[in-house]
């Protein structure tokens, strides 16, 4: 019993120490405002984390939009409300599924890649050697990936939403024979700039910070062995997925709190 409690205590202390180290890495990396000469580094990373995630984001978005439209069409059809498919689709995607699913995909595709890359650089002493050459790896390696993640995920989320709604439209209109005009006019009339789009953007920015931060930190904090890299990569995906879902719940509660 004592042993169990001690185990729990030790693990909690490790967690707290981990959060502390992660905060140090984040603040140290973002302390220096990027200079003009850092822009190419950031652009290169936007390519690595953002552009290379595009394929998986677009494919998933199309499928999810299509599936949602199918379900909405059949269920709403029972009440003769097929015209509401567009609005339902848009609201669900903009408020919840867009930010959340894109963040999960991003964690799996880009987050794991960031962790593995930084972890490998640490294991092969590239980070140390950079430090010994008088170049700060937090500034040179970590910071550009953080900024790139912050920028990329919200943009990917926007792309996800557009593609998913488009995919839903194809199913609802071209396949199920819904009315295209009413599909779009429903969206136009019901979607609110702040309540639906704005709050979704807030969510995606929060997820971008959390996922990129976790990915970068797990890489930087990797135990420098081959197993260490594997474990860190897994942790990035698991921890950031759980964090995204938990934070989404909290944000939904606080931003759309007046559920009756």
């Amino acid at each position, binding site marked *: 019993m004592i042993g169990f409690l001690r185990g729990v205590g030790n693990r909690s202390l490790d967690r707290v120490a981990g959060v502390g180290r992660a905060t140090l890495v984040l603040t140290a990396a973002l302390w220096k405002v990027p200079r003009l000469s850092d822009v190419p580094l950031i652009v290169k990373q936007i390519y690595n984390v953002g552009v290379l995630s595009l394929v998986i984001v677009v494919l998933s978005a199309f499928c999810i939009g299509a599936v949602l439209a199918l379900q909405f069409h059949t269920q709403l059809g029972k009440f003769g409300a097929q015209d509401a498919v567009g609005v339902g689709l848009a609201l669900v995607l903009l408020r919840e599924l867009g930010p959340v699913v894109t963040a999960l995909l991003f964690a799996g595709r880009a987050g794991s890649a960031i962790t593995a890359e930084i972890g*490998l*650089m640490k294991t*092969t*002493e*590239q980070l*140390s*050697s*950079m*430090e*010994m*050459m*008088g*170049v*700060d790896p937090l500034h040179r390696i970590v910071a550009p990936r953080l900024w790139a993640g912050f920028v990329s995920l919200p943009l990917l989320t926007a792309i996800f939403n557009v593609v998913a709604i488009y995919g839903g439209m194809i199913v609802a209109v071209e396949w199920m024979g819904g009315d295209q005009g009413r599909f779009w006019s429903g969206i136009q009339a019901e979607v609110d700039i702040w309540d639906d789009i704005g709050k979704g953007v807030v969510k995606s920015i929060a997820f971008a910070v959390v996922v990129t931060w976790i990915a970068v930190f797990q890489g930087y904090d990797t135990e420098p062995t081959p197993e260490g890299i594997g474990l860190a990569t897994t942790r990035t995906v698991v921890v950031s997925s759980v964090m995204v879902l938990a934070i989404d719940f909290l944000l939904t509660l606080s931003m759309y709190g007046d559920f009756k």
Partner: protein
Amino acid sequence: MDDPNLVEIKDLHFRRGARVVFDGLSLTVPRGKITAIMGPSGSGKTTLLRIIGGQIKPDAGEIRVAGRDVGGLGRAELFELREDIGMLFQSSALFTDLTAFENVAFPLREHTDLPEDSIRDLVLMKLNAVGLRGARDLLPSQLSGGMARRVALARAIALDPQLLMYDEPFTGQDPIAMGVLLSLIKKLNGALNATSLLVSHDIHETASIADKIYIVADGKVVGEGHPDVLHDHPSSRIRQFVAGRPDGPVPFHYPADEFVYDVLGSGR
């Protein structure tokens, strides 16, 4: 300024968790010479180089490099000091996404405002010094282990450092690559007017180029002197190490119960 020693370490203490790595280690690295630190794997050689470069803070002790107290330097001063130190890492540590040329150019681009054609001349000069001017466009994955180490060496000397530190440069090298590295280390120390600190457990190679050898064990210096002197050292432990005998005062067996007890399964 004309201190005869470039590096001075006094009474260094350092522990990792419960394990004591250094327990009152003191040594000096004279200017212009090749000094070697030898010790078995895990004796803290890499750790020592990192402490000298200020990457790890010791628990106690004084580290002076070129007259500056490494422990008392702020982050910016530390990075400045490191421009005067070239280090060759055990794993070469080349940047995997950059060509040999760009690897060597990296410290020059970071720390100087030289125009591109001067950088090009300097990089080719450094690569030529290690015999790899022709390999400038290869990526680290296309280089053999020995070549990668030489490119890393060219990178380490890019800024003409005062102090060159080598972390086990001979480990995992074939005999020819080893010979090349040995002559390079010797040649570069003279040509750059630098001071070299070499960490290794390859006794013969090290003895052939070092001016002075320190033997480290149990976190302390247990022997020091010119390579020739160590063969006849009064300590049997040092003679064992120098001769490379598997058993002796440093036991072959990790401490354990008598073998019979383990075999009979009765414990003690």
